[in-house]
């Protein structure tokens, strides 16, 4: 009595095993380590408040997304944008970020006298605009001017040709002969413009984020680090006078989130119990590496840290 085995079933079984086996191996990858998202402040409000607020926030919401974009793109579209929109931006800037407003206030006053001489010649018609243009690109003055001049080319090529004649005239004389060379030069300008604007975009974006959140360690980052250290910090039950055993450990972290140097105990205590407590704290800090919950953007904030290991609350009685 031989068992008849259907080859197709064997093949099917083998195939299933293969596929499942492949899946087991390939899908069992390490879980991705994602930094925890920043915590959002949440206010609880009543329906009345909501109805009142929504009226206000409608504009706010509309404004909020725009300013972010506009800020980022400020140097570019200044010329294109209408005057009305710019006034909206101002409101948003003052409300969202406290730092920007002083700049426009100070600089326009200084620049108003300055620009008239060089710029007034080029753009007498844009009287309302200069006020906005100047506050925005104060640090990037040469770039901004270049951008303005370049972008101004499109609507008003004649004026700008006058403004920026020194360079082009020479090449014109030479390059008139080879059209391909002019094209090559033009091509080069475009990427340079783009790269500049790109850099400007990044810079303004990073500034924006620093104003927004990134400059300070988010609560969730600190919480995550605190939780990590708390889970590794061994506290002895029943130790005498735990209130005396507060240990402060100073650490310096590398951008890879590992210690750049051995942790340093900066608090002082002489008893053997304190020494043991200090060693336990250092052990926790050493074991906690790497601190993957910390974000790159806030490196300046977590480069140096003082960590207090305070067992007081654990032993109320």
């Amino acid at each position, binding site marked *: 009595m031989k068992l008849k085995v259907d080859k197709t079933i064997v093949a099917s079984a083998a195939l299933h095993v293969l596929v499942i086996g492949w899946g087991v191996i390939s899908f069992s990858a390490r879980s991705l380590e994602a930094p925890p998202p920043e915590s959002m402040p949440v206010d609880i409000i009543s329906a009345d408040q909501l109805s009142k607020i929504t009226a206000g926030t409608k504009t706010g919401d509309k404004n909020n997304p725009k300013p972010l974009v506009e800020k980022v793109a400020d140097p570019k579209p200044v010329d294109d944008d209408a005057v009305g929109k710019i006034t909206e931006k101002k409101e948003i800037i003052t409300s969202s970020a406290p730092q920007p407003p002083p700049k426009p206030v100070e600089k326009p006053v200084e620049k108003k006298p300055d620009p008239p001489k060089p710029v007034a010649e080029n753009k007498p018609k844009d009287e309302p605009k200069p006020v906005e243009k100047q506050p925005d690109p104060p640090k990037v003055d040469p770039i901004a001017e270049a951008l303005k001049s370049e972008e101004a080319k499109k609507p008003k090529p004649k004026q700008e040709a006058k403004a920026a004649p020194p360079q082009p005239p020479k090449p014109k004389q030479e390059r008139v002969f080879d059209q391909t060379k002019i094209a090559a030069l033009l091509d080069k300008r475009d990427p340079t413009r783009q790269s500049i604007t790109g850099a400007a975009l990044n810079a303004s974006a990073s500034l924006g984020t620093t104003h927004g959140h990134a400059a300070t360690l988010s609560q969730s980052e600190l919480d995550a680090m605190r939780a990590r250290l708390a889970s590794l910090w*061994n506290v002895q039950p029943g130790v005498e006078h735990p209130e005396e055993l507060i240990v402060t450990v100073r650490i310096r972290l590398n951008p890879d989130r590992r210690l750049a*140097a051995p942790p340093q105990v900066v608090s002082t205590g002489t008893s053997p119990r304190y020494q043991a407590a200090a060693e336990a704290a250092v052990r926790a800090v*050493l074991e906690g590496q790497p601190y993957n919950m910390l974000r790159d953007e806030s490196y300046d904030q977590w480069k*140096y840290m*003082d960590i207090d290991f305070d067992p007081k609350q654990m032993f109320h009685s």
Partner: protein
Amino acid sequence: MSVTSFPLPPLPLDRRRLLIGGAGATAALLLPSLATAQTKLVIPEGNVAPLPIAIPNFVAGSPADGQVGADVAGVITNNLTRSGLFAPIDPAAFIERITDSDKPPNFQSWKTINAQALVIGRMSRQNDGRLKAEFRLWDVASGQQLAGQQYFTAPEYWRRIAHIISDQIYERLTGDKGYFDSRVVFVDESGPSERRVKRLAIMDQDGANVRYLTRGADLVLTPRFSPSTQEITYMEFGQGDPRVYLFNIETGQREIVGNFPGMSFSPRFSPDGQRIVMSLQQGANSNLFVMDLRSKATTRLTDTPAIDTSPCYSPDGSQICFESDRGGKPQIYVMPAAGGTAQRISFSKDDVNATYSTPVWSPRGDYIAFTRQGGGQFSIGLLKPDGSGERILTTGFHNEGPTFAPNGRVVMFFRDPGGNSGPSLFTIDISGRNELKVPTPGFASDPAWSPLLS
């Protein structure tokens, strides 16, 4: 049983670690000046978890020392486990096999199994017949040697060596003195409950080396250790009234303390071991007296129409806590060691009818342990000498007779489940954690912990 000890010098660091150490030192010098605006993080809560420690078998100096090497590591492992503060790692998980205790271990292989501390040792028989024990305690995370000692003793005292090494490890990692090199005297109980034979017995704190001190002809109660560890005092029912006896553990000699009419009971040594404080019966009442063991001079400490008993000195000898029913029910009082006004310190918040008894002062002075009776339950608890901070460690049908470990961090007591069974000894951390039964050959009660032997 003499044990001589010498510190082991730290091993020379290899070059790589020297470099790391140097870099660390320079970085540490730079840190304070650079760190001006660093983030401050407060960790308000830690992990009350035992410290993972690896204790591989001690290396054998000669093939004949293999067994003792394993035994010593076993006793250390058991001690540290029972303390509740350490979690010795299963040797099956060890990656590195230690064959030379004079070489620094490969710390990475111990980090891998999450060991935070590592104990490496060697046992070797000397030409003069003595046993040499060496050990080093390593911090795995930093790769530093935290402690190193070598000991010489007679081979039969290997267990004591293991306790001493355990104490060294405990002290270095917790900052508190250990308590493993100590003994416990207790009342061994055997036979049926109606005809119980009670014998005085002594054992190591981990339950090993049990030795019987009396034959069980007479009933014995409340043994107490002298701070000198060579003598105990206890109460024994002889032919007449119960008497307080003094017993020399080494010589086996015993004598009656004083010659008083009526009962004398509930004795305890003063911290200097020169005096015994006890209760003397006077009619239906009893008062506290102190007797100088050299001059035999006896001084009265209390004079009340009540039962004053269970006196215990504070570790500095300046005060005495005791039990008295002068207020109607047994409560705990504290008074100056020379007698005087006594302050009641036990006040139950949740049970006005609760009574307090068997007070005993912690060797580190911060707590008084007691037995509390109320609501049909017996509890073991702690309160501060000023009466504040009462905490109950354990509650049950019958718990009684607390005694502190030499470092004041563990309390031993006895528990009787009732019925036909008998009492057993238990230990519990003063934080209320880690309740453990102490192995004894039979039923056991009335434990008294000795001071450290060394």
